[in-house]
């Protein structure tokens, strides 16, 4: 088996003197879609931020492609939950995506083509000249995802990206992310507190618990999701395997809900 793209080795994270994450081991292979799930305050976002290099592990090591993560990198795209705070309000949709290309030092001549390509991927071609505030929440989050795709990252980290959206928009964005991940072969680590979303999207679900202790470590469960793709909002969620996984994971999380 090839080297994992992300490798958490006995990673322990302490913030303000409190242990948020007790030593945890897991890895994400290239092309894999892994969801981290858990109740509020279990440290799932913190774990994701450690993978991004925003937070340093207090113990253990986070490796990306075999190298220790010491800080943020353009190889890693981060989709923030709050799209309103992650987009530049004074730049158009195309301008927001251009930011990632400017940061990477892409020549101006090449930018337009790449912007057009990612806009097409997320279905925003007609809105290139609009400003973020003129778009709905779902469309703004698509802009952020498009900017991350434009980075052509090794891995995309998504922090509850659909948490602030209404149910309908959430489902259509779930399908869209599934589709474009399949198209691009992108590796994704995805944080959510929505159990169904986690199972629906991922190849593997990692469940975390709050207040880890010696006999109850942060890692509550890790289960594979052997459900074929493409998946379907109605059919997949009625699949006996989906229902079984949902029940199994609910047991792990239910005590803390």
């Amino acid at each position, binding site marked *: 088996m090839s080297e994992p793209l992300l490798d958490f080795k006995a990673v322990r994270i302490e913030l303000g003197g409190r242990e948020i994450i007790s030593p945890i081991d897991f890895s994400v292979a290239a092309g894999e879609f892994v969801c981290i799930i858990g109740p509020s305050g279990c440290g799932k976002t913190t774990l994701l931020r450690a993978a991004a290099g925003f937070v340093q592990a207090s113990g253990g090591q986070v490796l990306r492609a075999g190298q220790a993560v010491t800080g943020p990198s353009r190889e890693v795209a*981060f989709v923030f939950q709050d799209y309103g705070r992650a987009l530049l309000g004074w730049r158009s949709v195309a301008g927001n995506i251009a930011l990632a290309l400017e940061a990477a030092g892409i020549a101006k001549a090449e930018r337009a083509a790449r912007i057009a390509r990612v806009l097409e991927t997320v279905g925003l071609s007609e809105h290139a000249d609009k400003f973020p*505030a*003129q778009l709905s929440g779902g469309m703004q989050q698509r802009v952020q995802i498009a900017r991350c795709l434009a980075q052509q990252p090794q891995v995309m980290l998504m922090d509850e990206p659909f948490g602030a959206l209404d149910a309908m928009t959430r489902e259509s964005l779930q399908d869209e992310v599934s589709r474009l991940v399949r198209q691009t072969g992108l590796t994704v680590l995805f944080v959510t507190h929505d159990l169904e979303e986690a199972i629906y999207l991922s190849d593997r679900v990692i469940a975390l618990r709050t207040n880890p202790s010696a006999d109850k470590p942060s890692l509550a469960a890790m289960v594979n999701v052997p459900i074929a793709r493409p998946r379907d909002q109605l059919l997949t969620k009625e699949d006996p395997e989906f229902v079984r996984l949902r029940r199994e994971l609910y047991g792990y999380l239910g005590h803390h809900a």
Partner: protein
Amino acid sequence: MSASARLLRSLRPWVFPVLLLALLEWAARTLTPGSDAVAPPSQALAAFIRALGSTSEDGLLRASLFTLGSAGAGLLIGGGLGLGLGILLGLSRRAASMGFLSIEVLRPIPSVALIPLAMLVFGFGFRMEISVVAFACFWPLLILAQAAARQVEPGLLEVARALELSPWARIRKIVLPAMVPRLFVALRLGVSIALVVAVTVEIAANPHGMGYALMIAQQSLAPDLMLAWLGWIGLVGYAINLAALRLQQALAWRMGQRQAGASS
């Protein structure tokens, strides 16, 4: 609304100034004729036109250019430095704690108290006036820029980190544009401070510009000319404040496209 009603409404702001001028005209002519302190506005207007035609150093155009030039240069230098340092202090807690004491000790010094020092260093003329105006404009721009930089959305700074933007690109592409609306408040404040301080320096010490011309008119017992200068300085102040406001509105309108959907 009928056209005549609209006309009446547009005249409304003029009622009070016109009444005041008429009252002044009447009072100066009947109560204090030949006074050394008060002149009727009609004579001030005549003096204004004479000053307008004068090409001497204290003629209207040259004196106004001197004052506006030094106010502008002082604002540019002092405001620019204040802006730069303010951004630095707003972004870096370490820099802010290092600069805190020095700033709090220097800031309360009234800018006009610097006139004697500036005179010793630069002598009379442009440079001493510019230096005092720059000092006066430096502090409010520093404080406001620091506050504005501190209030830049932390999420945007994280995006900048995630994209590995260089410190300079971070300031140019994220921090400065995010600060623009607040910076315009600072600019308008700076503009009015610069004019006030420039005129003050001229009245107190520097033998150039509008403030000095006003003093000369007073000392040569020419109340009409003095009133003319007073009115002119007021008009200039009004005009540049209006210009700054218009600039702000034009920019706010351009950036307002992002507000367009915010209410829905």
